[in-house]
């Protein structure tokens, strides 16, 4: 083997080993790398989590109860395609928060299955377009809001 071949074999095998090692680590950590659970993933957990969790899903249309003068709590539900979880939150919602929008809440799961959130983050999808185009699409009935998360 020439020196050049030796060097390429050395580099290729070092890189290959790193890929395998990193791949194994990432697979093992798969659950903790994900930034949030979805409601159906939460339902699948055998032991209900008693620490702080993050839950992501679409705000269910018609589920939002705004804060009033007597009660500062905002109540809503988020859902994926299979399940729904109710959320209670006291605080300021991000501008993008609205029905049908993807959001991520952080908080604790109470005994009655409601997540008491301490933080609400809004997700937005990867489509960008002017308002007129969005309106036109809605008019033509070709509008698909919130295709994520599954």
């Amino acid at each position, binding site marked *: 083997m020439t020196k*050049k071949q030796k*060097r*390429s074999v050395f*580099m290729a095998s*070092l*890189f290959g080993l*790193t*890929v395998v090692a*990193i791949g194994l680590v*990432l697979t093992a950590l*798969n659950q903790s*790398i*994900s*930034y*949030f*659970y*979805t409601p159906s993933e939460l339902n699948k957990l055998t032991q209900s989590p008693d620490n702080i969790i993050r839950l*992501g899903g679409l705000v269910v249309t018609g589920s939002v109860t705004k804060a009033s003068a007597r009660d500062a709590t905002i109540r809503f539900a988020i859902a994926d395609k299979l399940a729904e979880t109710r959320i209670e939150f006291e605080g300021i*919602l*991000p*501008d*993008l928060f609205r029905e049908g929008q993807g959001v*991520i809440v952080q908080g604790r799961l109470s005994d009655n299955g409601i997540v008491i959130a301490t*933080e*609400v*983050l*809004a*997700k*937005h*999808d*990867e*489509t*960008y*377009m*002017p*308002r*007129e*185009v*969005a*309106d036109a699409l809605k008019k033509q009935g070709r509008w698909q809001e919130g295709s*994520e*998360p599954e």
Partner: protein
Amino acid sequence: MYAFANPMKFAALARRIAPWGYGLAALLLVSGLYFGLVKSPADYQQGDTVRIMYVHVPAAWLALMCYSSMAIASIAGFVFKHPLADMAAKATAPIGAVFTALALVTGSLWGKPMWGTWWAWDARMTSVLVLLFMYLGYMSIWRAIPDQARAAKLAAIMAIVGFVNIPIIKFSVDWWNSLHQPASILRADGPSIDPSMLLPLGLMGLGYTVLYVALLLTCLRTEILERQYNRLGASKASNAGSSLVERGA
């Protein structure tokens, strides 16, 4: 590939090309900013905040592109011993680090109004932060080892091994649930960005790329001249030393 392997010839060429590069980059960036900040429409969802995209997204592209070029140059240097490759990799690192930092800062400024947070430890953001640290680590290898030939070898190994992070950054938004949205441009069913917004984004992306090439030429030329200077300085010093020895004898 070996046509400009002669460093001094390359330095002379770089000197002639670089100013044109800066001019072209300025033209592209100014027109990109004009279309991005003035001419393009506000987003249906994000309003005017979407304009941060024209600065943020190309910076993130270049962060990945610079690292990829660094890894390719490192292979050319380590395996094929191309005389300019190690220098090109070394010169790319600080430029890539700046683009990475720019992507992180503008992303943070975009995240606060839209998502509601400056920072989240989701897979995309964390892997880009790791990329910044890898650039800094790569640069510190060059600085920590005085013998440049040895530094080049170790730095090349680091750059190539670290390339694992690039696909992780790219696909982090598909592999794991993340706060960051998936790709808008490089996706199977075509870009999901309106053409009126795609134009300034393209101009900015091109402008950043040309700016990178021009900066790289300048940095490479500086590196070549610095090495030449050191070599001449060293030989002068040793000449002086030997003449002293002769006089002493």
